[in-house]
């Protein structure tokens, strides 16, 4: 259950940002989550809601956008989504391709209410 710690880190980041803009209310935070990040989105959402409830940030919500596992081909330069862990290039069948994404655990945006 490392999702609790991760949810807490998200809230720390939101608090840090909202201190920089004391005039706005943060209503939503957007997370980009890689499908190979090892973080479960449902569990993270559950922990996030539990941590927000009854605090100064309530009713802040979390929106998770899943980022697929992506590789790029060094030969034909095609970038593609990896399905069923087949890392070979779908265009030229080059077997050795380069990791481009899928491990993200990034805060992408906040939605704020201005006075």
């Amino acid at each position: 259950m490392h999702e609790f710690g991760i949810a807490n880190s998200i809230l720390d980041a939101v608090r840090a940002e909202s201190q920089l803009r004391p005039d706005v209310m943060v209503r939503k935070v957007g997370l980009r989550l890689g499908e190979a990040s090892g973080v479960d989105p449902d569990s993270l959402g559950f922990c996030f809601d539990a941590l927000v409830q009854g605090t100064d940030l309530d009713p802040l919500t979390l929106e998770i956008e899943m980022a697929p596992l992506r590789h790029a081909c060094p030969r034909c330069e095609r970038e593609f989504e990896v399905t069923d862990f087949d890392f070979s290039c779908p265009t030229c069948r080059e077997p050795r391709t380069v990791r481009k994404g899928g491990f993200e655990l990034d805060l992408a945006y906040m939605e704020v209410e201005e006075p």
Partner: protein
Amino acid sequence: MKRVPMERKVLSENDRIAAELRAAFQQHGILSLNLISSPGSGKTSLLERTLERFGSDQRVAVLTGDIQTDNDARRLARAGFPVKQISTGGACHLDAKMVERALSDWPLEEIDLLLVENVGNLICPTSFDLGEACKIVVVSVTEGDDKPLKYPSIFLKSDLLVLNKIDLLPHLPCDIAQLRKNALHINPEIDVVEVSCFTGDGLESWTEWLAARRQSVEVA
């Protein structure tokens, strides 16, 4: 409602400390390895067998993480090398801050190889960079040959898979060729060694892998 871009990593604080650790390891020529597995796969046994094989001139140190007790540190200290227990007090993984704190009173210039045994857990430790040169995943054959398919993240992020408890294969339905195949399906680059920490079979393949990695640090 107005959308404001953030573009920062959730674990930026962990990543910052991990980057500092990595720089310190490089500066002192330390190879740091992060061992990850389910509970009971044999991380501590692998380290025991490894330390037993080292001469006293080897500059090796071990950090071992557990939720409770210092049992593992006491087991590993018998070999005579510096060992420190990190008790996480409930947390299911080590983070970079814990490693930084544990190393704070150790002279890094006296260490060439730092073995970090993570908390037994195949999921959570995957997300936390500890400044290591690479991750090593340990799987015992009692866990079933489809483990890499069920927990792909750790196999994607590891440089080496240690298959442990191969002495038990005659008693198990586990197909080790299939296990290897599944691991290589997830990560075609992963190295694989097969060992039994109980009988000692295959341990040379692990120590050879380790020696090659240590040499690559010295050359760099």
